[in-house]
């Protein structure tokens, strides 16, 4: 009985104050829309060799597997790579964790590394080595992988209005996601990125910030001047594709 009385009150408060506004993600634009010119080389070239200061590069090669499970090993990745085989997420790699088991039917596959450089190393013995991206030997089941295609991604500067979104996701790889929402009155809001992998966000075509699931900080402040009355549009570039279907607003910063 008590429950019956209390619940509407609790529900009211939740809806008014505690429950964050949720935004449904509606459509995806494939990452291939922001591909820049492909560079081909025998070995994987670092960002420096590709003349890229920071951002994202897709490293791609064809593999031929003999067994269902093979060990992938890298010599260097700076700073973070999301690994896909035929568009299916296999896992992530960083300089602290440079091996990954690839699960795929024996045969020919496309192996893709989406590599992000987060920032410059500024301490420790590695300090003199300022290479970024993927470089050195990459091997699968002990065999060195060669014949790389390197495709820089124009994530930061690509005109968002030119992206073509499709309602049904065509593949499981990285991409841009879109969500639209009517604003609930709120003086200060944060976008809660909990559940998303790594990427960047724009609101109403203005850059809002970046996120990464490995960080404790899981929210991005939305400056009130970025919000418009009526419909607001979010675009999220997601590198890892955690299959998120929605995103929420929070009145306070979110840390895990």
């Amino acid at each position, binding site marked *: 009985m008590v429950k019956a009385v209390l619940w509407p009150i609790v529900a009211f408060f939740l809806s008014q104050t505690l429950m964050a506004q949720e935004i449904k993600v509606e459509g995806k634009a494939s990452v291939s829309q922001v591909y820049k010119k492909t560079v081909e080389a025998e070995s994987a070239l670092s960002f420096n060799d590709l003349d890229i200061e920071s951002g994202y590069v897709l490293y791609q090669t064809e593999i031929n597997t003999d067994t269902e499970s093979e060990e992938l090993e890298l010599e260097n990745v700076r700073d973070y790579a999301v690994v896909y085989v035929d568009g299916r997420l296999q896992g992530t790699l960083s300089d602290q964790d440079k091996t990954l088991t690839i699960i795929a039917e024996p045969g020919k596959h496309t192996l893709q590394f989406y590599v992000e450089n987060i920032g410059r190393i500024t*301490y420790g013995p590695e300090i003199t080595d300022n290479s970024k991206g993927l470089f050195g030997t990459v091997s699968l089941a002990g065999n060195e992988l060669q014949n790389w295609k390197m495709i820089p991604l124009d994530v930061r500067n690509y005109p968002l209005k030119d992206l073509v979104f499709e309602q049904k996701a065509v593949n499981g790889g990285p991409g841009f996601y879109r969500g639209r929402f009517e604003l609930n009155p709120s003086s200060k809001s944060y976008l809660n990125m909990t559940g998303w992998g790594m990427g960047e966000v724009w609101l109403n075509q203005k*850059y809002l*910030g970046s996120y990464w699931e490995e960080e*404790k900080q899981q929210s991005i402040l939305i400056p009130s001047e970025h919000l418009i009355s009526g419909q607001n549009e979010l675009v999220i570039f997601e590198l890892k594709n955690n299959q998120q279907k929605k995103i929420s607003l929070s009145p306070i910063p979110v840390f895990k």
Partner: protein
Amino acid sequence: MHEYKISIYKYVKMICVLGLLVQATLLKAQDVIDLSGTWGFQTDVMDFRRGSLSPRYNHVLQGTIKLPGITDDYQIGYQNPYKYIDRLTRKYEYMGPAWYQRDIEIPADWKGKKIFLYFERTHWLSSIFVDTKEVSSIDYVSVPHNHDLSSFLKPGKKHRITICIDNRFQYNTHKWNHAHTEFTQINWNGILGDMKLLAIDPVYVEDLQVYPDITDQSIKVKLRVNNATKKQVKGKISFAIAGTNYSLKNEIALASTDSVTYVETNIPLGKQIKLWDEFNPNLYRISCQLTTSDGKNSYRHEKSTTFGMREVKQGKNHVLLNNRPIHLRGNVENAVFPKTGYAPLDDASWERIMLLMKEYGMNHLRFHSWCPPAAAFRMADKHGIYFEVEMPMWGKDAEPDEARYNFFRREIKAILKEYGNHPSFVLYCNGNEITGNFDFIEELTAEGRKADPRHLYSGSTARTRVKSDQYYVSQQTNKGAVKVYEGQPGTDWDKNVESDVDVPVISHESGQRCIYPNFDEIKKYANSPVEARNFEVFRDLLQKNGMLDQAKDFFRASGALTVLEYKAVIEALLRSGKSAGFQLLSMNDFPGQGYAPVGIFDPFWDSKGLVTAEKFRQFCAPTVTLLRYDKSSFFNTETFRGKAEVYNFSNSAIENAKIKWWLTDTAGKVLQKGTLKKQTIANDSVSPVGKFEIPLKNISSQKVTVHLAVNDTIKNSWDIWVYPKHQDLMQSTANVLYTDVYDDVAKRQLAQGKTVVLYPSPDKIKGRKSLFHNHFWNPIMFAWAPMTIGNLVHHKQAMFKDFLTSYHTDWQWWDILNHAKVIEMQHAPQQLRPFIQVIDSYDNNQKLGIGFEAKLNGGKLLVMALDTKNDMDNRPATQQLLYSIDNYVKSAKFSPQVAVDETFIQSFLTK
């Protein structure tokens, strides 16, 4: 240890007549034996304790040393034969246990007292042996070591006190932290500052913390009273608070029934109490006199501290001090003290630095991965400088290691307790660029916030954010980069959007522009524990490469570039009103990590003579006039458009400000002038104050200066360059051949004794990229291309007759240098000096150039490694330089003196 609730019997308050000096007369309640002077001494590189054989404390030590001091002062240690390149070389290296010994007679009247052995600062573990027994060891880094020897010293008896100071790393912490690094101060072994044996009554004030409440104009005083008598005591605590024209007394009763009693009391201070801030650093001193009795014996003890009435809070984008936003104009302080090899413990040394900060318009110091001694806080309290202090923590120090974690857990508490009362202690951060387990970083940060709300807290600079962060020092936020390492030729940009996150954001390690070393500094190390042997190596290499006579010019030219970069960097961060401030790296040189001469001061805090304090304050001060404009180089058909702003983080708004702009030529003659609307300029913000336009037609002096002033007192200025448009540049004549290839035509022209201007496309030239900026930090640590540190322009030579330039590059060179290539010229004849000479990394010192002239095969040759083809309609300075060179090569003044052979020309051209 138990905590007992105390009862306060009475509460007495009296305010003394203002101006009346109240001298508290105390009974002799504390005895001190000053321990400075000669001590027995012995090194212990074998660490005899490990073998359990003849540890040093069993013997009379054979050598002597004077304390306070360090082993380096007495040439103790490994006489260093090396010349370190990446840092100053410590002449006598010592890292290991070292033993210090003295026989001390404990006064008989110390019976029943607590006896402490106190060292103000030591590195890093101090262990005390009384006679032959180890009785105490302390491993704090940031605070004094205060050994309680009460149970081990017998009053009336002579004891042999042997001290082991072990400056080895006691925990596996990062080796670069500035408390220990050989890169700045050295990892010394010794005892510094105040060192004494003191006896106090057994009922004493162990801790005194003062928490100001500026709203109530009161202080909360928290005391920890220790009672070693094992008896119940009763008595009173008398407070005396004094400041300029201020005096107040207050008293509370105390009853203590156990070993530790916590006392907390609020003391209203009255309306006349003044706040503390950078503009009015009003200080007060509180002394607490404890008088107790157990019915038989009575005890007295006095403890005092300085405090300031100020509160620190987290604002939206700024640190709030006394509820007002402050903007931090700061320097990264890295414990650079080559004169002594250790951070000074005396007031005068620190006062000098605080006064320099003030003189150069700064209000903030970040102590990077270390915490300074009390004298630094005292002088910052006195002069109004805001500190950020840190533990000796860096890099992977947050990776799991329970012993190391426990060290940091102790250290943070010790820092907060030891220095927490200082009003200058505004910000606390655990350390620099930390990686590892951020649950641990969050734990420390949250604990700090809970323990002491007088400071704002941050988990780590420039790394993962944590929940308890109250501010964030970083190169970037999740909104983008907030670092500013270099300027731009236009100024219409800022870091507002990137700085606007959930906490105030301070731009981390801004600046870092490398200057060529000044070899004159070598002689300054004669009496230091370190020497600039790397400078000797660099100097010898420059000499070998035939350019020693240019060392000073390289220093001056790269230094001038750093100054103009710092002006641009600081102004960009002042335009960023949503930034909480910046920390420049740095005002003084950093003599490690490869050696980074990025300062306008040398490592001794002596000016390098590159910029005056007055000039520096024009762009770094509480109030600065700012100007936004698109570019620095113009055609005289264009109009200069300026958007004026005033950065005002002073202590008041500027009422009815008169704002003027004017334009002068190089002779200082006013060419044009105007005023902006008279207005009141708000405080605590960056305000747009108006726009103005200056048509640039009829300007003939090439370089002009735009000035902007508020009330004729707050002035700033910016150089811009104005050029005529040129058509049909680089036209060959019968005598002068312009060619982008060195081919048979060119060779024939030269063979005829005529002139060739060779201007290969930069992509056809081997060699390094050309850049406007000098190298970031230093080219030894960050060995990334192009490893150059600016340019020396031979500006008095005739090819620059129609192109106004100084010996150093300025913003008009932006377009020229960013579209050029650097020719490797080390194998050209030694006498050949390029007229645009690129300054190489000082550990390489090769001759480099962008433009040079020479005799070749009987003809006259001028080579320019510049792009002269792309987008020339928008490159006024490049046009003007080509025009000037054209006039030169077609004049009788063109007469190269040094002959080169063809192989040199071929050496830098791609096939």
